[in-house]
């Protein structure tokens, strides 16, 4: 199953980011076509992929832009329910008008559903982000926390989406291929964005907002862009989750889910994509590995978190920058660096 995880060093300085992207997608295609995992393993593998998408996208907001958002599960919920609504309510008509259920129609329906889920979450991100990103630190955290809860309560009271009884999704379309393709795209977009000339703006907002404004960075715009983009990917992750788990309940997208994603970001090291990917993998596997010691599972899990935070407060990979070896490094002049290549 390690085959399908996106390659780790797609961080700063990776020589061929596009090649890595394509390699990851092909690898996940091969794995889902030829490797037959038992159902339990494929559940874990898909869960890891979804968590990678969630953690890497949240890292854009919490890690790179330095805005503490506590509502990521809310955006995931919007994506999950929107995508599920598309396939459940629009699926029949889609298949009728396109000539029955076959590979092409289900694939296209799934892509449309995921995209709509992502866009719905992005729109919600925009609506929440514009007013609340004026807040700083703890206040922003509380505002986003409140938002996440509002989403959950709205879903709970929406009868067409099953309310608190939950919503049964009509198709199980999510595969390892889809999950890791989206995960690879997420990593690709976030890493390339942050390493671009435009993307340095995110880092300046985190390092010093006043200084960023003083040199002419529109800090509000950067914060909103980060928030909307992260929400978009969270929405798609939600869509994948919906068509993988098959049954959605509002409780699944509560405060605890947001915390779980944040722990991955903090453990991986704020603003360190490789670390966050590892943390997502580790924190998804850990509860599974601890299954044999059932009743102490959460105790050990919590203890490990505490020990990790005590020994590596900067995150698993915090403080480590990944550079390509000297022979691969191009000599760059300041002028060349200025061109957003």
């Amino acid at each position, binding site marked *: 199953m390690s085959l399908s995880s996106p390659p780790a060093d797609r961080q700063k300085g990776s020589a061929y980011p596009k090649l890595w992207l394509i390699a990851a997608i092909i690898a996940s295609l091969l794995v889902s076509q030829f490797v037959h995992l038992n159902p339990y393993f494929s559940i874990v593998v898909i869960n890891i992929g979804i968590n990678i998408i969630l953690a890497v996208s949240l890292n854009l907001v919490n890690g790179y832009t330095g805005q503490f958002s506590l509502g990521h599960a809310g955006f995931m919920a919007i994506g999950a329910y929107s995508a599920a609504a598309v396939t459940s309510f629009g699926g029949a008509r889609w298949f009728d008008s396109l000539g029955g259920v076959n590979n092409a129609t289900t694939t296209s329906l799934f892509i449309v559903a995921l995209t709509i889920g992502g866009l719905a979450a992005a729109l919600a991100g925009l609506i929440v982000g514009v007013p609340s990103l004026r807040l700083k630190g703890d206040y922003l955290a509380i505002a986003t926390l409140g938002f996440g809860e509002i989403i959950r309560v709205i879903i709970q009271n929406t009868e067409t989406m099953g309310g608190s009884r939950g919503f049964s999704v009509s198709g199980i379309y999510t595969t390892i291929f889809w999950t890791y393709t989206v995960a690879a795209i997420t990593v690709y977009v976030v890493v390339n964005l942050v390493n671009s000339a435009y993307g340095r703006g995110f880092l*300046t907002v985190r390092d*010093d907002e006043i200084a960023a404004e003083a*040199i002419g960075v529109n800090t509000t715009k950067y914060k909103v862009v980060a928030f909307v983009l992260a929400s978009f990917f969270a929405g798609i992750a939600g869509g994948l989750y919906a068509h993988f788990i098959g049954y959605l309940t509002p409780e699944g997208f509560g405060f605890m889910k947001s915390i779980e994603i944040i722990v991955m970001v903090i453990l991986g090291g704020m603003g360190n994509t490789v670390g966050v990917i590892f943390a997502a993998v580790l924190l998804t596997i850990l509860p599974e590995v601890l299954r044999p010691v059932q009743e102490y599972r959460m105790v050990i899990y919590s203890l490990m978190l505490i020990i990790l935070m005590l020994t590596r407060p900067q995150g698993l990979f915090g403080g480590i920058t990944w550079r390509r070896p000297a022979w691969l490094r191009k000599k760059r002049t300041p002028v060349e660096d*200025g061109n957003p290549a």
Partner: protein
Amino acid sequence: MLELREITVNYGSIVALHEISLKVEQGDIVTLIGANGAGKSTTLRTISGLLKPGRGSILYEGEEIGGEPAHKIVARGLSHVPEGRMIFANLSVQENLMMGAYLRKDRAKLRNEFDYVFGMFPRLQERSRQVAGTLSGGEQQMLAIGRALMSKPRCLMLDEPSLGIAPILVKTIFEKIREINKSLGITVLLVEQNANLALEVSHYGYVLETGRIILHDRSEALRANEKVKSAYLGG
């Protein structure tokens, strides 16, 4: 070049600036001196758009800029070096300087600016690949000034450049400020607690006290003024 007309700024119900009027002529170094909390930094922050003026108007090159967002004001060529050396600690020295040119469309032609900044502060060139957070206080201040120069400003506002810096470096930095003013013709508005130094390098000075301008004159005249002497120059 820059003119404030009866600017009033409030923090909640507290009045931080009370009908401040001042004028900065092109090519001059103008300084604002005053005790802690007099409103010096507030004045600069209001001019650069980080704070919104409650009343009054700010004219830059004849145009009203009061209430404009900060990034638009920088684009007009009015650059602000905030207090406390606010550099981007996790970016390299070179990236910090790059960010200074953030709003410029002609980023390919930055060679001149890099040469100029590195020429003025050779220390920065030596450390161009180093993460900025690991620089010394004085070096960080140089970086903050260098970063502001990258945007090719016509007017530069400096907030307490001597704050928390080794005395030997303070002298260097003030020499550089003079050089920036002379060789590049950049107008400078300088806020400084070290009134002695500030009045030495500047052409004109304003004295702020609890949000009001109580005195303004040519710098030599202020240095000779008994009131200023006893209150700010330690003698």
